[in-house]
Every structure is written in C-alpha cells, then in structure tokens.
C-alpha cells in the first residue's frame, strides 16, 4: 500500500491531537473538554461505557460533527472539516459503528463509494465497472470467510458480512489514519481474527489506527496506547505495555482516578 509515512514531519510523534473538544446535543453533553493524542504508526485504543461519547468523538474527527469548542490538530495542521469529504481528502478513513453502507447498492459500489474508478471519454467520465468489480473481489477475499458476491446488494448480507465490507472499504484506500468504531462487534471468531490480523498489518505498513472496542482482551492484545472515556470526558490514558486490564476497567467504571 502506501509508503511508510515519515515520522519526523512534526516535532513530536503525534499524528492527531484533540484539545479540549466539547460538543452538546441540546441538554446532552456528549463531549466535555476531551483532550487526547494519537502517535504515528501506532494502534491507539479508545474505550468506555455505552454512551461515554466515543462515537461522537470519532464523528468529530471524521468531519460529520463540528466541535462546539476546542481544536483538533491532524498531521501538524489544525483542521476544521466541513464535511466527511474533507476528512477523507486529508487522509482519514472511518469504519463507523453504523457501518455507513448503502443497502440498495452492491458490495462493489459500496466499496468504491465516492472513490469510483472512471474512464474518461472526452468530456464525460464513465464508470469502469469491471475494474471496480475485480478490485473488489480481491479486497473482500482477504477478510471474509463466507465471501459475499461483490455484485449482490448489501441488503442481502448478514450482519457480519456487512461489517467486513465496511472494514474493507476503510482499509482499501491509502490513508494516514484509519478509525474503526467497534469493528468486530458483530463478527465471528474467524472473522475477528482476520480483522485483528489486518489491523496489525496496517500498523506494520505504517498506518495509524484508532480502535474503539468493548473487548478489553482485544485492546490489550493489539494496542500501543489506551485512552479511556467516561460520561463525555477523557478520564485517562495509559501505554498498554504499562497497564493491566484491571486498571483499564477501573478507569472505565470510575473506580480509579487519572
């Protein structure tokens, strides 16, 4: 895939830095002054209870929401994404918890959504369906066990198959940061193993990954750094090597301070 990004472009190793990011929906304070950093070439985990604000933070970084206050610095520049398009341009691919698939489109159309391969015929650009279909077959077969046909509509896939498609899409395009919001929640053992393998491989290839998961064993196994959220606040961060599952659980439940 892409060449290993040069870790020396910014003074520290931080690829993404959130500083005092806040966001409320009416009375619900979903994010309260959240600050955290992601280092280049690492897998960073984000954990927390249901409703802690993890997905909301992800949506801020990937351009769906705009924070009401605070700033986000990505790759050295302060970002102010007006749309998910901007985030994808900047090099952030996201697997949303809701998957963000279009049920009535086929697997290959979803994989290449807004990244379509076109052939130029003078002034008009026509879709290159064959190219996209054959590339899609490759992409899907690396991940799925019961490989869905790339020409079938997503509506027909099982929950796990859908998740596999969404992950393929995020992993399939060269990007600086891949965000995965509970990517293995609906997956079987074999599929989970493959996704974990993929995540490790991405780190080896120099991508950075932000992983959200409720599976602490997975988090401890894969990540380099863990951030913990509770009730909209970021209540702590640990190097994975220097912490234990128990400490993380204590942070999540509020039994321990920062």
């Amino acid at each position, binding site marked *: 895939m892409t060449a290993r990004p040069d870790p020396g472009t910014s003074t520290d190793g931080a690829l993404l830095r959130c500083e005092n990011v806040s966001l409320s929906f009416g009375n619900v304070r979903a994010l309260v002054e959240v600050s955290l950093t992601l280092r280049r070439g690492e897998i960073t985990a984000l954990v927390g209870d249901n409703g802690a604000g993890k997905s909301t933070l992800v949506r801020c970084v990937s351009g769906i929401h705009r924070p009401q206050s605070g700033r986000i610095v990505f790759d050295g520049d302060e970002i102010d994404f007006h749309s998910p398009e901007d985030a994808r341009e900047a090099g952030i691919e996201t697997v949303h918890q809701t998957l963000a698939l279009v049920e009535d489109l086929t697997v290959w159309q979803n994989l290449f*959504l807004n990244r379509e391969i076109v052939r130029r015929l003078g002034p008009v650009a026509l879709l290159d369906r064959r190219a996209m279909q054959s590339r899609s077959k490759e992409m899907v077969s690396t991940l799925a066990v019961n490989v869905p046909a790339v020409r079938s509509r997503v509506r027909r896939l099982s929950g796990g198959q859908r998740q596999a498609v969404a992950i393929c899409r995020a992993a399939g395009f060269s990007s600086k940061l891949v965000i995965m919001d509970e990517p293995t929640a609906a997956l079987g053992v074999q599929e989970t193993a493959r996704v974990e393998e993929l995540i490790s491989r991405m780190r080896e290839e120099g991508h950075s990954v932000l992983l959200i998961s409720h599976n602490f064993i997975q988090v401890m196994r894969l990540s380099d750094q863990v951030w913990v959220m509770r009730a909209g606040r970021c209540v702590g961060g640990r190097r994975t090597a220097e912490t234990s599952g128990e400490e993380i659980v204590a942070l999540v439940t509020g039994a321990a301070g920062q």
Partner: protein
Amino acid sequence: MANATLAAGDREAWSARLKDLGFWAEWAALVGLVVLVIVFQALNPTFLSAGNIASMLVAAAILIILAVGQTFVIATAGIDLSIASTMTLGAVAFGQAYAAGWGLPLSCLLGIVASALVGVANGVIIARGKITDFIVTLGTLSAASGLALILADGKPVTIIDPVLLGLSTGGLGIFGWSFVIAVVVALVAHVMLFHTRFGTHLLATGGAPESATAMGISTERIKIAVYTISGTLAGLGAILLVARIGAAEPAANTSFLLNSVAAVVLGGVSLFGGRGTIIGPFIGAMLLVALVNGLTLLGVSQFYQPLAVGIVVVLAALLTRFQR
C-alpha cells in the same frame, strides 16, 4: 472452453430468472404493456396500425420526458409535485418571448431556463432549507402556476411556427420528432444514472443519506442537481407541449403531474429512493398512453374510462408485488 461454460452458465441463469417471479415483477410495466397491446389489438385491429402507433408515440413523448425527470427526483427519495406547473411556466415564458419577437431559438432557451430556475429554487430550498420535498414542491406548484398566470395575463398565446409544426408532425417514419427527442433524453438519463459517478452518488443519497454523507458525498449538491434536471426536462417538455397544442397557455396540466409519478412507480422505481431504472418509467409512460388510446379506439364511454384506468393501474402494480 471457458467461454462455452460461461455461456451455459448464462443460459441457466436466464432460465432461472424467467422462472423467478421477481424477474417478472421488475418488468411489470412491460408485461402490462404487452398484455394491453394484445387485448386492444384483438378487439380493434386499427390499434397496431402504423398511424395509430405513430400518434401514440407522439402522445407519449412529453410524459416520457417528465417521467425521466421525476425518476431522478424519486431516486433520491424526493418527489417533484411542481413538474407540471413548471412546464406550464416554461411554456408561457416561451410563448411570451416568441410573441415579443425574440425568435424561436432564444424563446426556446428562455422557456428552458425559466423552468430550470424553478428546479434550482426547489433544489436549493429543499437541500439548504432542509424542508420536505413534498411541501416545497407543493409550494412551487402553486407559485409557478401563479407566475405563469401573471406572465401570460391569463391569456393563451397562439404560436404558429413552421419549425414547431414540423417538430410536432414530422419525424423518422412512424417515430415523430418529439418521440425521438424523448428517446434521446431517456438514453442520456440512463447513462447518467448507471455509468457516471453522479448516478451512483444519486442512488446512495436516495438509499441511505447518512451513509452517503459519511462517505463524503454532498447530498445537498445531489438534491439541487436532481431538481435542476427535473426542471430543465420540464422546460423541454414545455417546448414540445407548445409545439403540440400550438399555443402557450397558463393552464394547469394537472394530469401530467399524477401521470408522471404513476409512470415512475409503474416502472418499478421505489418511492423510498435508492433504486431506479430509466427503461421502467419509459415503459410505464407508454403503458398509460396506450391505455387511454386503446379505450378511446374501443369507444369506451367517457364515464367508464377512469374506472378502467384505475383498475389497470392497480393490476399492473399488483405485478410489482413480487419485486425484490
């Protein structure tokens, strides 16, 4: 070898398809049309005479063009209730310009631009204002017919122009020019919908707007584009309408509204958006026109015609029951 296997596979796939009710449902409008043609031809042999076919095709042209515009909108889960009044406004703008001596090409352009502007207004209000399509286009339905009345001062303008007359009466064999135009419009629309990025983004916007947004597609731009297309096609329809009836009138043309939507739905396009074909609505429009033509040929009384139309529409829709 490989080729032979492939062909065999294809053949099998086809015979499986033919046995599958879902396949027939996708083509409900076509099945309905074929059945109608057989019935009418059996009852009155002039139905399939060259002359009658020609006049059916010409009669279908405007409806086809409007149905194509409506398809774009409906595929994004919207609806354009203003399509017929927009056509009226386009016709009146055209008529006023022509009467004021602008000449045919400029007047045509003005008619199309006026309609396209209504489309842009629809799109901008719906996309930026985030208001339901239904109510916005209901509003522009009223506003466009009001504008048409004001522009025309409530009076029709008779337009006698040899080029327009040729447009409405000449053609290639039994294919009148207006039908030829409709076919070209449908072809271009088909390519746009299925062979461009715009088309894919349009279907994504209709099928799952939030997913489309998350993938960086600007659903607002798509919405504005489809309403502009619908308005522009209404303008094209306006010119064919003026050519056909020889006058630009501020009349309501309400039947075109419901028929355009009916053609789209009969053509198997879901009102919930995200799916669609162009050939379906095309055939749907032909079905509606053939139905009225056939009933007229058979001399079915005026009172029984609405009843018959209603029953056929429901029966044809029954076929789509097996879709998906």
